[in-house]
């Protein structure tokens, strides 16, 4: 959202005091101008107007006047008693109710104007210093006017009066469903929408039997606003408008702090646990121990002394506690100590938006740092899926903004989502950490496998682990992969023991082999030694032989010479002798 710089001459704003609404319009309604609130029957127009006045009178020191054209003030006050605004306390100094219902026996002849009303209001405004005025169900009195020109004239009169008296005005008027913003020209009072400075449309629809309230700011002169339809709930304290946290708002504290998941090996797989304030999604088919994992988280949080809320949609809190005790997760003591609040949301009804608002309220009330919603996919069943997605988004945004670590489980539809693993709420794309639990059916067994599909901002294991539930707790075992197949449960055990035996056999065999090789080595060494000796002998023999041969040869040649000399008969010798002489 664009923020208008303060130096621009923009009229100041009047806070309405409705959670979410003031954010949509960047602060409130235009001061000293007129706002139109339209909606069908039961859409909350009157409550909107009353909340605007109650907030002004109580928190802004701006007394207000409520002009009731339809209901009597006493009825109105009784109707909103449940919201805890304590309107009777504010009367009549801070909040004045003007009962202006046309009497049923009213006889009319010719046109009229609203000067009488304005005269009374002017006097009241002066005496009580009113700053805010609400004209509730103005259409009732406008309908009495004989022609459109007269209606227009009277609305202008009101508008003028508000402007000249520096009053922030609100006009509520009925619309028939389907006739809101689409076709103002066809609406009998459509012109009001053109005249006012701000126009808010309230919608109340029923989708698949579930009520859904929406609010939309149609126009706001001179200010930016959130143009989309925002779901709202009329809750314990009046209006509660759901707005997505505006991105870039610096209220989300990001930390590197880790919180344990409650399962030691899972923490290791995640490199230390979940991030504080992160949103964790645990998906899986029914019975894959989603609740158990989230229960382990809740128990760990309570052990750290952190206030925790556990919202269970599937079973009663006492059942959850009992069931988790069977796997060594003891939530009971923490419930008794008040750290843990278990909410069985089966009793909560309404649209996804209503549920979110209730969960938010309960979490705030409990001042929880950790929140478990089991399963969050139930939200989509409660209303139409379109808004439920928005709800999941807001749930995560809200928990992040408040620094609440959120663990939610989501049931996967076994039939439709087996392939893509997506969740009905598409929360999987929003969650920071996504843990998936699965069954592996093998050799007549069903075993639970756990893997981390994603975990933002941390290194995490890529291994599938077997999730083992025992009465001593939740543990994760390495799975056995052999020949490209993944083994779990008994088969894993069998394979593991088989491989243990095999390795023992191999060890013995290895040792035997070693002994054998040692022996062979020794033999060879001995052989090598004797051969070497033999070699030396042969070498000596060879040298001896060579020497003998040489001597013999020399002896032979010198012998022959001698013989020739002795004989003296050979010419060659004689020549030699001659030459010598």
């Amino acid at each position, binding site marked *: 959202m664009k923020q208008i710089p303060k130096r621009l001459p923009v009229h100041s704003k009047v806070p309405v005091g409705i959670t979410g609404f003031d954010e949509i319009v960047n602060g409130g309604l235009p001061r000293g101008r007129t706002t139109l609130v339209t909606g069908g029957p039961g859409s909350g127009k009157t409550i909107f107007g009353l909340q605007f006045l109650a907030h002004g009178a109580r928190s802004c020191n701006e007394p207000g006047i409520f002009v009731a054209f339809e209901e009597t003030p006493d009825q109105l006050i009784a109707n909103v008693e449940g919201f805890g605004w304590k309107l009777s306390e504010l009367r009549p100094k801070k909040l004045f109710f003007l*009962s202006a219902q046309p009497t049923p026996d009213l006889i009319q*002849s*010719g*046109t009229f104007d609203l*000067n009488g009303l304005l005269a*009374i209001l*002017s006097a009241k405004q002066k005496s009580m210093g009113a700053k805010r005025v609400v004209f509730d169900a103005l259409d009732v009195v406008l309908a009495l006017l004989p022609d459109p020109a007269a209606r227009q004239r009277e609305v202008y009169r009101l508008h003028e009066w508000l402007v000249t008296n520096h009053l922030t005005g609100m006009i509520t008027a009925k619309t028939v469903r389907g006739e809101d913003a689409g076709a103002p020209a066809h609406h009998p009072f459509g012109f009001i929408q053109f005249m006012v400075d701000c126009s808010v449309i309230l919608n109340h629809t029923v989708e698949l039997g579930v009520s859904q309230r929406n609010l939309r700011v149609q126009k706001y002169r001179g200010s930016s606003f959130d143009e989309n339809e925002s779901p709202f709930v009329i809750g314990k304290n009046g209006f509660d408008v759901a707005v997505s946290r505006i991105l870039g708002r610096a209220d989300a504290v990001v930390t590197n702090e880790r919180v344990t998941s409650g399962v030691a090996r899972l923490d290791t797989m995640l490199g230390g646990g979940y991030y504080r304030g992160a949103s964790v999604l645990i998906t899986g088919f029914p019975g894959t121990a989603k609740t158990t994992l989230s229960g382990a988280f809740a128990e760990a949080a309570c052990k750290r002394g952190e206030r925790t809320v556990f919202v269970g949609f599937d079973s009663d809190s006492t059942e959850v506690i009992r069931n988790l005790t069977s796997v060594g997760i003891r939530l009971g003591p923490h419930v008794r100590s008040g750290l843990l609040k278990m909410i069985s949301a089966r009793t909560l009804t309404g649209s996804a938006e209503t549920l979110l608002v209730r969960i938010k309220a309960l979490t705030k009330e409990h001042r929880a740092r950790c929140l478990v919603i089991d399963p969050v996919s139930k939200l989509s069943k409660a209303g139409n899926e379109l808004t439920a997605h928005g709800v999941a988004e807001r749930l995560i945004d809200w928990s992040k903004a408040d620094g609440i670590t959120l663990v939610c489980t989501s049931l996967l539809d076994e039939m439709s989502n087996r392939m893509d693993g997506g969740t009905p709420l598409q929360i999987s794309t929003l969650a920071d950490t996504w843990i998936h639990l699965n069954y592996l059916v093998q050799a007549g067994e069903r075993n639970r496998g756990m893997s981390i599909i994603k975990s933002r901002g941390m290194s995490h294991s890529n291994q599938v682990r077997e999730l083992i539930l025992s009465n001593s707790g939740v543990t994760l075992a390495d799975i056995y992969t052999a020949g490209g197949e993944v083994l779990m449960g008994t088969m894993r055990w069998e394979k593991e023991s088989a491989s243990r035996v095999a390795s023992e056999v191999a060890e013995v065999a290895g040792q035997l082999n070693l002994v054998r090789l040692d022996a062979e080595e020794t033999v060879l060494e001995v052989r090598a030694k004797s051969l070497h000796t033999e070699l030396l002998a042969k070498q000596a023999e060879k040298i001896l032989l060579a020497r003998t041969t040489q001597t013999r040869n020399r002896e032979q040649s010198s012998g022959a010479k001698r013989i020739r000399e002795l004989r003296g008969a050979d010419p060659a010798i004689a020549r030699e002798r001659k030459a010598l002489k």
Partner: protein
Amino acid sequence: MSAPVRFRFCLFVADDSPNGAQATANLAAICAEYLPGRHTIEIVDVFKVPARALEANVFMTPTLILLSPAPVRRIVGTLSQTEVVLRALGITKQAA
């Protein structure tokens, strides 16, 4: 024949508005024609005495209140449709 009934009117107007002037004129004309000599008209300007308007719950102007004879009746508007006004006040042309 009993004494003629006296009609007491209170007409709330917003001083300078044309509607008020019209209503005053219409009422005067009706009284002159049908209730000659047996009517009292008080004209209240809502801007001058808003307390009176609040007291009488007058939000729309002009408003004519017939205080007596009972029952109290009120007619909103410029009183331009004489027929309607007469019927509302219980005056028949013959009775005049």
